[in-house]
């Protein structure tokens, strides 16, 4: 290939991601002239959908932004509304929310790693091929996913779109017998989580970006690794309260995509498992820490493709933490579980922002309530939207570096790269095409 050739790489629909997106790269005389990640998922205007609804309805509505991280959208909404109403949840409520959230992380990470990302590494074009040639991996996925789904079903009511989470608390406590079932499932799944890490460590990334990204993640509210917090930390050394998110997080629309793009103090950023590990890996529990410290991540190899591994390490951590949370709940909750006696809170005008660390990164919800408790204004910033600008930069760096690779191979590598971010286009409301001109 000569320097004067014009090429295009176009991936019309990135498969095995949630929702719809395309990648388009233009290459002019051996140089990348433009990269676009186009999310062509139909827009749903959630900021408008919630307007006028009573705050009690909001978690059920925002849950529908995205199935796989619905629990995150439910909790971010609840935290934001509680902030607006000026109430703080009880420690038992927080523990139950945490357990539900850990269930979502396990289910989402397992599905992403095995069903969506793994086929790239083993060359399985379809599901029946994966199921028949890799029955063990297929079974691992089933078990881990079932674990996450069981946690969410027992705490939230179903595997996603939970019904038991409300502003102010839960409507029903789980019974000890159900929690003990979860404990048994958790302890039998730890080995599977370790073997998932080993599997991902055995794959050598085919391409790598060339610069370190800016990472952003919530500072966990406890001293351990965690997914809830009120302050965000950047790998550039600053911290900001979530309530000030508009000051550090820029969000703008791009003409070619239905997803907005974000920047952190003007720079592309990466959120998600890798960002969390990079900033707070030292806080991991003993199981996950042992895997993390021996991994390329701990020695500073921040290739985005290792995000799959980062997710696997988080599964180990989530299993460990879920066990700890259940032990605490077995002390705090009545044996038979049952009705919590949750009361409707008096409405009050106010504004509040809430954030949680979802599988793909920090999710922000912000609401203004009128004096009847109805939503007057709303804003949501999803992890996938925050990652988009960095994905485009990654693609640019990889194409620049491997411009002489066979277009088919390069295109496949780029799809793997995009997939490693586990983009959720239904969340971001976004696809891959590389054009060489």
């Amino acid at each position, binding site marked *: 290939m000569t320097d004067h050739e014009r090429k295009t790489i176009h991936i019309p629909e990135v498969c095995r991601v949630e929702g719809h997106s395309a990648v388009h790269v233009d290459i002019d005389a051996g140089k990348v002239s433009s990269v676009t990640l186009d999310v062509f998922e*139909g*827009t*749903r205007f959630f900021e408008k959908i919630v307007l006028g609804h009573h705050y009690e309805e909001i978690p059920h509505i925002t849950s529908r932004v995205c*199935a796989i991280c619905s629990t995150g959208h439910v909790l971010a909404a609840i935290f934001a509304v509680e902030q607006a109403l000026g109430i703080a949840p009880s420690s038992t409520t927080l523990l139950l929310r945490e357990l539900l959230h850990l269930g979502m992380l396990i289910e989402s990470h397992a599905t992403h790693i095995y069903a969506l990302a793994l086929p790239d590494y083993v060359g399985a074009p379809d599901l029946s091929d994966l199921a028949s040639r890799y029955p063990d991996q297929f079974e691992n996925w089933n078990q881990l996913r079932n674990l996450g789904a069981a946690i969410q079903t027992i705490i939230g009511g179903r595997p996603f*779109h939970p019904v038991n989470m409300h502003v102010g608390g839960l409507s029903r406590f789980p019974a000890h017998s159900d929690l003990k079932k979860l404990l048994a499932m958790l302890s039998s799944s730890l080995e599977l989580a370790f073997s998932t890490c080993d599997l991902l460590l055995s794959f050598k990334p085919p391409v790598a970006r060339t610069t370190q990204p800016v990472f952003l993640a919530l500072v966990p509210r406890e001293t351990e690794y965690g997914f809830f917090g009120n302050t965000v930390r950047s790998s550039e050394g600053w911290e900001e309260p979530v309530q000030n998110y508009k000051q550090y997080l820029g969000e703008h629309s791009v003409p070619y995509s239905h997803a*907005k793009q974000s920047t952190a103090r003007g720079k592309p950023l990466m959120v998600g498992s890798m960002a969390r590990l990079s900033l707070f890996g030292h806080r991991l529990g003993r199981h996950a820490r042992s895997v993390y410290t021996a991994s390329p991540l701990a020695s500073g190899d921040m290739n985005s493709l290792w995000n799959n591994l980062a997710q696997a390490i988080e599964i180990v951590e989530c299993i460990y933490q879920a066990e700890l949370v259940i032990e605490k709940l077995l002390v705090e909750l009545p044996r038979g579980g049952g009705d919590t006696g949750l009361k409707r809170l008096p409405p009050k005008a106010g504004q509040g922002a809430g954030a949680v660390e979802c599988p793909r990164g920090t999710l922000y919800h912000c609401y203004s309530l009128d004096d009847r408790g109805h939503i007057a204004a709303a804003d949501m910033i999803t992890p996938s939207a925050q990652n988009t600008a960095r994905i485009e930069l990654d693609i640019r760096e990889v194409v620049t570096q491997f411009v002489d690779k066979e277009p088919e191979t390069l295109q496949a590598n780029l799809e793997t790269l995009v997939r490693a971010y586990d983009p959720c286009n239904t969340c971001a409301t976004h696809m891959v095409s590389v054009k060489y001109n």
Partner: protein
Amino acid sequence: MDRLEQPLPCISVHSLTGCAGEELVILENLQKALPLVRVVSFPFAQSANEMRPVDIAFVEGSVSQPHDLEKLKAIRATARWLVAVGNCAVWGCVQGGVCRRFTPEQMARDVYGQDNQIAALPSAPLDKYVRVDVKLSGCPIDAGQFLSVLASLLKDHLPYITHKPVCLECKLKENGCVLVEKNLPCLGPITAAGCGALCPTFGAACYGCWGPCEAPQMEAMEIVLKEKGYAIDEVISRLTAFGIPQEIYSRDKPLELKVSRQ
């Protein structure tokens, strides 16, 4: 002929605009179906996808942009049975509900700015545009109901899908009534069952995510909720949030006419 030599029936799974919840339920239950069918297209779950004639096409999501409509027409042209799965495909869900309050142009301007190039259609269920053979609502669909629809269609039977109210399942579970005993604004009496009365089982009010039951007793629902002290505009806001057209609840006159809005 040896059964093993017969080609497997072909299915495809597609999504338009939605939360990918039905795709997730289908993916998580596909293992049970894999011995019986060949999945020729399922872009959420596999890379090798063909647009070719199938016995059954499952479609989730609502039609919310011209791209969705083109795709839906192409799917309809290849499918013997087209099954609308999930509230989005059957009723339009939350993105359908909001389109009765704002135009897509207004919303695009407010969310993406004046110069946006969003090509949005008012979100609508599939049957606004194409013939739909089976409608399986749910938000998300129930895995058991999905498998029974699949099994029926593989046997060339149209499936039976219940449209009895949530209350029926709630009573079978012997739950206490959250509407009567806890004064919660439960929409179970007018909402289609299939979820196993999930919210009331968890001590919470049903919020109608599966769409209306058959012959919903709206007048009675309204009287009860008024007695419980709920403002009618809040009731309507709840009723219509999940895409259900308001007209469906009124037999002779639109409910809106009886309401004095604040």
